[in-house]
């Protein structure tokens, strides 16, 4: 059987995968797309894609939602939630078997590193690469916050892990967003609290979203400053006045350091968030290895979906050569 490119994704809400697949079709690059939903049709472990058939892997998504709903006989809100968590863990346990059965070097991004990415660790790696990052601390007391504010820093609080969506009983939806803490709202902070990540607030001139692809940085500047509503985080989307998004070229020195950082994580693709302050200094914020790149590709006319298809092709041809 000839080796092929494996794309791990999900069947719904994945425009980026669809787009890359359409490029692969057009460029006549053979591939196998396995969606998380397909795991429900496999009969046994032998049906999972095997190392020998696979030349390169692009791991994009696991699954959007399970094709069947499961519930316990005596269901209440808590047990239902526990069950949901359990099923997610079960599914992940199966899905991540591939991380071990398929040789690690075939993966565009190291899957274990990708699935366990730690924001605090990434920040410290970035600093080791000589990239400037905002002052970051994890604190548990109001006193510690007061101490930091006294130093003249305004702070933001954001999760160490990922932002979550919450839903109330009426179906209202809430998204967790970056919040500012300053002397004016300090009184809302309790004396002691759950360990929380605080970061120096950078007054930004604009934000930068960089898509890193095999050593190259494709960057986009995002201007949201004029827009009161989107001042803290441009994801608080303002549809009436969308942010201006334009192509941007990072200084060569910073690109080199970002390349070093991505290589140290064994990532060949990923989305990098940066901020430019009023003085024009760059601040590294975070990496999303599976970040959406359509939002950078389209406004900047970068054709990243096509470039990614070509990269997969290059990797799989390389793999074939080695084994001939």
């Amino acid at each position, binding site marked *: 059987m000839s080796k092929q490119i494996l794309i791990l994704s999900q069947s719904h809400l994945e425009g980026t995968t669809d787009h890359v697949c359409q490029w692969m079709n057009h460029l006549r690059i053979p591939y196998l797309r396995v969606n998380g939903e397909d795991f429900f049709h496999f009969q046994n472990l032998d049906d999972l894609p095997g190392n020998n058939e696979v030349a390169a892997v692009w791991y994009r998504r696991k699954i959007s939602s399970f094709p069947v709903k499961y519930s316990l006989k005596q269901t209440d809100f808590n047990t239902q939630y526990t069950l949901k968590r359990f099923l997610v863990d079960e599914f992940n346990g199966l899905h991540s078997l591939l991380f071990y059965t398929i040789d690690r070097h075939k993966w565009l991004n190291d899957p274990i590193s990708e699935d366990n990415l730690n924001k605090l660790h990434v920040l410290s790696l970035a600093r080791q690469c000589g990239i400037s990052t905002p002052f970051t601390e994890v604190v548990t007391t109001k006193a510690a916050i007061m101490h930091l504010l006294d130093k003249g820093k305004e702070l933001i609080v954001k999760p160490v892990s990922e932002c979550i969506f919450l839903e109330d009983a009426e179906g209202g939806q809430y998204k967790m967003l970056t919040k500012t803490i300053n002397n004016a709202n300090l009184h809302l902070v309790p004396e002691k609290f759950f360990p929380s990540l605080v970061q120096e607030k950078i007054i930004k001139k604009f934000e930068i979203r960089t898509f890193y692809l095999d050593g190259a940085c494709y960057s986009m500047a995002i201007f949201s400053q004029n827009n009161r509503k989107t001042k803290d985080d441009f994801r608080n989307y303002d549809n009436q006045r*969308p942010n201006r998004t334009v*192509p941007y070229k990072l200084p060569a020195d910073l690109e080199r350091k970002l390349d070093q950082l991505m290589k140290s994580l064994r990532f060949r693709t990923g989305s990098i968030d940066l901020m430019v302050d009023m003085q024009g200094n760059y601040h590294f914020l975070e990496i999303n290895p599976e970040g959406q790149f359509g939002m950078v590709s389209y406004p900047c*006319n970068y054709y990243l979906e096509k470039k990614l298809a070509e990269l997969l092709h290059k990797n799989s041809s390389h793999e074939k050569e080695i084994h001939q």
Partner: protein
Amino acid sequence: MSLLCDLQMRRFYHIPNDTADVLIFLQQHSISECMTHYGEDNRKTIKGYIDFILNKELGFTDNQLLPELTPLDLSWDRYSDITNVIIEYNEEINYTGSFFRELFDLHVQGLEIRCYRKTTLDKIRELLEVFNGTTLKFIKLVLAYDDTLELQILDKLVKQYPRVKALLIHSSPADNPEKIFEGSVPVIFVSSNINSCLACGEIRSSYFISNMELFTESQHYNTCLNRKLSIDLNGYIRNCPSLPDNFGHVMDTSVQEVLDNKAFHKYAKIRKDEIAGCKDCEFRHVCTDCRAYLENPQDIYSKPLKCGYDPYNGTWEDWTKNPLKHAAIAGYGLGEIIN
């Protein structure tokens, strides 16, 4: 005149060349250098230009030039060999054959279905069924007016076939733009009669589009014909229904044969930058084109016949009244439809 295109917000601004010169100068120079360069007398005017840019959110002021804000890459490519299709609908033709399957497997994005004559909605539904399961994104329906075409019924139709994103109803009792499906789908009723492709190829400023797709494609290809394919009323495959050459019949031709035929691509590379008149026109990359009706039918680089714009003095006139165009109008047999 010059054109300032905001491809993100899909707007464009028609500006005097002097304004454009100042804006281009400002790409490399500070505001104060610009003031010095153009002289104290022009200070207020230049300030006005800058305010305009700030107001329209086309730029911002900073304490330094930012060379990192690089120019947009204007390359263009698509993952489909055919991006847009026009079908001149004919009840006698079978649209489920292998040609159509092969064609829509190419990931065609946009389809226009033109009905010159009255057709029942059942027939239209039958045709729309063909595109279920394809990656087609956008269908425009052109229908002949019939008093059964009530908005309610059309609303049901577009909800059943959500790929239908625009409707044009010709030969209507009145000109009347409407909207259905919670305002998301325009239905334009026009009184004029669209009974053949002779009505096509009109250039109007209201047709101009300022977006990334058209602007970048226009740098390299003919936006009207590049990767476009049409099936005419009799089932013949053409670049566009109005062009004379055909590349076989849908019953006995494969899509691959058409794509392999060099003649099929003859117009694809004719850019606006090479067309007489258009090459000096500020609208050239927001305008579409027409190679079927030309001012000089002998010259494929000639300006579209149905354009009344004169880029050299910036004025629009009624193209049908231009005496220099009369020979071509008669030659194409357009005399009747313009009266």
